[in-house]
């Protein structure tokens, strides 16, 4: 178990739901924190009576949604300035990804909830391209309910042996994230090919 995860778990045990909220909020915004393993552990702690799984789920969902919303509103307000200063808009991938988001905001937002750090990128882009709030928040909430629910309940079932499975669970989460990234990239490629007339 990594030292970062160990530190987070100690804080979670001491500061409980407040710690879950803070770490999950930070991860939802952009911080590379091992929240899948953390929520797996929280699910296990719930099975031991140390947490209430429904309260844990409510905290995880609300912190996820608020973190995503913070990213979205940040770029909605300041996005154009930042992206122009960093010259990100000159990247071809950025332009294509932006077009994908404009074309299917709900699908891209929803699927990116399961794609690790890509979800933060999508949040920032959604605000930048001006995706309507409802088109962003509804698929965001749906995805943010499904992901922690699965993780918490898997942890609950695993109980004290959650740490045995955390490596394989992290691997599975990475596989799902990779699959989502590939899916989005495939859609971008297909749109580019259609425009060039090769499909």
């Amino acid at each position, binding site marked *: 178990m990594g030292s970062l995860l160990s530190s987070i778990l*100690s804080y979670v045990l001491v500061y409980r739901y407040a710690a879950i909220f803070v770490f999950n909020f930070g991860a939802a915004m952009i911080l590379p924190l091992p929240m899948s393993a953390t929520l797996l552990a929280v699910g296990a702690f719930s099975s031991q009576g140390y947490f209430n799984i429904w309260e844990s789920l409510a905290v995880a969902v609300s912190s996820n949604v608020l973190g995503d919303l913070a990213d979205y509103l940040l770029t909605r307000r300041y996005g154009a300035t930042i992206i122009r200063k960093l010259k990100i808009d000159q990247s071809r991938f950025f332009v294509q990804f932006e077009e994908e988001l404009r074309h299917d905001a709900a699908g891209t937002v929803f699927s990116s909830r399961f794609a690790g750090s890509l979800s933060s990128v999508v949040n920032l882009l959604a605000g930048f391209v001006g995706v309507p709030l409802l088109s962003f928040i509804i698929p965001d909430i749906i995805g943010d309910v499904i992901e922690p629910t699965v993780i918490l309940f898997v942890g609950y079932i695993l109980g*004290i*042996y959650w740490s*045995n499975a955390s490596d*394989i669970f992290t691997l599975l989460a990475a596989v799902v994230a990779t699959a989502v990234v*590939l899916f989005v990239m*495939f859609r971008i490629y297909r749109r580019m090919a259609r425009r060039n007339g090769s499909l």
Partner: protein
Amino acid sequence: MILLSIALVVLVVFFAIAIVHLKRLEFIDQQRVEVSDFLRSHGSLTADDVSLITSWMTFDYINRLFKLPEDYLKTSLSVSDSRYPQMSVYAYAKASHTSTATSVAEVSSAVRDYLIKQANPVQ
């Protein structure tokens, strides 16, 4: 197309590394994933389970996990830190100026002694 190919290569390499890592952990051969152990995951813990104690656990959590009286570890380990029981074994090790491994061993030993006494009360 090139991007997709690169992504596929990355995925294959990632899987290969993960499989080697899992084999090294002998994950597939681990006894703990047997059904009986799985069923035990929600039952009461015994003296054999003290190996679960790690440095990130707090005394409060260990008390709940092993159903210990709240002040048992405080008394048996002479913990004077006011943060008890809301302090981790790692924090206890730092406060005691001992290594984490030593503190985990001390806590595990104290828990084991209690559980053995509970299981075999002196008549």
